[in-house]
């Protein structure tokens, strides 16, 4: 500042003003109503019309819910009770079907004496998820999260424990190969990390398995995949798909951004192909075509096949969501990471992905929610999903023939609770990761 104006100054403030409270019309309920509902004649008219619609919907559906019947063993009994209590022509909800058949909505045709197994798996799911979802919990819990998938598979399908243990052993071998060769050469270590477990599973597992089964026969009653159904099926496929599709989606998103021509082309073709094909087509591939590609004699579990294709489907969408997050990062973040000497993977792990994933949270969770709802499409490959497979089966029984809305509302409500909690968690996560201005 120069001092040339010192003599010609026209105005100098000698006291600074204190802040005053806002006028009362600018706060409180009146202001809220005026701003949000009655800000103009048009908005006032729309508000009144909206209230009218709400009133009509309520008066139309409320009696149906008010006339609910819980204790009835057939649709006819329900109707008799409603007519008896509320007069001729009254309609009402018949929740008796839910009370009598809830176990089928939940477990499908899983043997009732083994219900404790899926329930235990479901409870343990939260134990395994807790350290992943809430980072302030002790990190040691993560080791349980790591073995949980195998434990869950064993508890759900039963049978001998050894095939599951051998699958885990394969992963451990792969990890060891990566660690041991990592100091020698990164590329060789990467290849070994894939090759060692695959060779192990192909050649070594069979003989070791047979041997261990004879020496230490640990086994629980096995349950076939066609006995799965209802929410047990939907949650198994949904959780499996979510857990596997996120890492795959990240890899695809990075692949699409890669400078390496083959990696990039493969990622682009994969993503565009999967996104271009309806999920039902992929499910038919899972149920009919996939077996042609496998060596004759191998029977590959139908739930596993469906889970793999649902995973691929969701991964393609997640890859695109994450690509959006990557594109939103300023170029300077990559440059700063480079300038500090971080190599590609370290830069991705510490700088790029944490920020890109944070930006992508709403999109990723939307994809998860969409995928979880899409699990009901497995009805088309002969599995008993909770929305159509199970209700159709129940309707085929004489007592419940003609029951229509109640199963939909019940199943819809459960889907809503599960999806709404996913959505709330994503909002919690966004708030928690917010880093500016605290």
């Amino acid at each position: 500042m120069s001092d040339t104006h010192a003599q010609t100054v026209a105005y100098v403030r000698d006291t600074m003003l204190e802040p005053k409270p806002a006028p009362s019309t600018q706060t409180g309920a009146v202001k809220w109503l005026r701003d949000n509902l009655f800000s103009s004649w048009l908005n006032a008219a729309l508000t009144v019309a909206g209230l009218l619609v709400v009133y009509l919907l309520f008066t139309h559906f409320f009696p149906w819910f008010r006339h609910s019947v819980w204790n009835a063993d057939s649709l006819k009994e329900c109707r008799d009770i409603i007519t008896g209590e509320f007069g001729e022509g009254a309609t009402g909800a018949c929740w008796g079907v839910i009370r009598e058949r809830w176990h089928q909505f939940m477990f499908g045709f899983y043997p009732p004496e083994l219900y404790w197994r899926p329930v235990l798996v479901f409870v343990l799911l939260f134990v395994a998820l807790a350290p992943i979802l809430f980072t302030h919990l002790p990190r040691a819990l993560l080791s349980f999260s790591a073995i949980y998938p195998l434990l869950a598979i064993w508890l759900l399908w039963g049978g001998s424990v050894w095939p599951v243990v051998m699958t885990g052993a394969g992963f451990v071998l792969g990890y060891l190969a990566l660690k041991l060769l990592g100091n020698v050469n990164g590329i060789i270590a990467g290849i070994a990390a894939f090759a060692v477990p695959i060779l192990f599973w192909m050649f070594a597992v069979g003989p070791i398995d047979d041997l261990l089964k004879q020496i230490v026969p640990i086994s629980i009653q096995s349950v076939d995949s066609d006995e799965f159904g209802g929410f047990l099926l939907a949650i198994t496929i949904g959780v499996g798909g979510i857990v596997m599709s996120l890492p795959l989606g990240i890899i695809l998103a990075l692949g699409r951004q890669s400078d390496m021509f083959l990696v990039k082309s493969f990622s682009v073709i994969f993503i565009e192909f999967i996104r271009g094909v309806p999920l039902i087509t992929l499910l038919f591939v899972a149920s009919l075509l996939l077996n042609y590609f496998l060596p004759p004699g191998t029977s590959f579990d139908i739930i596993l096949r469906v889970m793999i294709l649902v995973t691929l489907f969701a991964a393609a969408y997640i890859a695109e969501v994450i690509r959006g997050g990557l594109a939103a990062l300023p170029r300077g973040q990559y440059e700063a990471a480079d300038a500090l000497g971080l190599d590609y993977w370290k830069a991705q792990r510490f700088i790029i992905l944490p920020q890109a994933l944070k930006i992508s949270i709403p999109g990723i969770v939307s994809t998860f929610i969409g995928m979880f709802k899409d699990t009901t499409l497995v009805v088309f490959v002969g599995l008993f999903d909770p929305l159509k497979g199970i209700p159709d089966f129940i309707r085929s029984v004489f007592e419940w023939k003609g029951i229509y809305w109640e199963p939909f509302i019940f199943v819809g409500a459960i889907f809503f609770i599960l999806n709404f909690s996913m959505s709330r968690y994503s909002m919690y996560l966004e708030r928690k990761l917010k880093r500016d201005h605290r």
Partner: protein
Amino acid sequence: MTEPHFDREIDRSHMQVSDEVAIQIEKMNKWYGQFHVLRDIDLTVNRGERIVIAGPSGSGKSTLIRCINRLEEHQSGKIIVDGTELTSDLKNIDKVRSEVGMVFQHFNLFPHLTILENCTLAPIWVRKIPKKEAIETAMHFLEKVKIPEQAHKYPGMLSGGQQQRVAIARSLCMKPRIMLFDEPTSALDPEMIKEVLDTMIELAEEGMTMLCVTHEMGFAQAVANRVIFMDQGQIVEQNNPHDFFNNPQSDRTKLFLSQILGH
């Protein structure tokens, strides 16, 4: 012409230029597509030199220093930094980058990490320094740039000047032998420019080899031992600051100086 107003006398006892070559650039050319950004650049920087690179926008000065740690790739000629030639060999690039610190116009701090984490990440994962030691080093440099009390905040909570000082500390934590500054004060409010320049002057006083792209001519006069003027991708003139400002040789330099100093 305005004289720089720095609070104190600059201590020149450690500002010694040695004979050892820190950076050698020979016949370096770079194109963006068809556009010839850098043309036949020859530049030798000795250890301990403080070089200010000036020039109109688009003259290639930022591109030049970004080639030195290969944020930009050059297409012909040689760049040798600390005895390591920059080629497409990733090992050499990583080696050079861990020896050369860089400060950007827009700070480029990592917004999801605390100030302390920003400063310790590279030492821990690139230099493989134990975490405890890295934290001690980071606190030492944060004290040097006078913001140790902000160590556990996130970059978004700091002012621009504070963020830029953190960025300088983050580079210093890697114990670099050369520091590159790419318009470090251009994105700052006038009130904050001084605090960043003070930090840079302290660094110069300790004998750091520095290359600064900047429009702060006061800084150039006070600290630099050499000023380089670039236009259209070429080095047009270089001289010691006294002669550069008082006795410019080329017409292009005279025009530039009259424009930035003339009002």
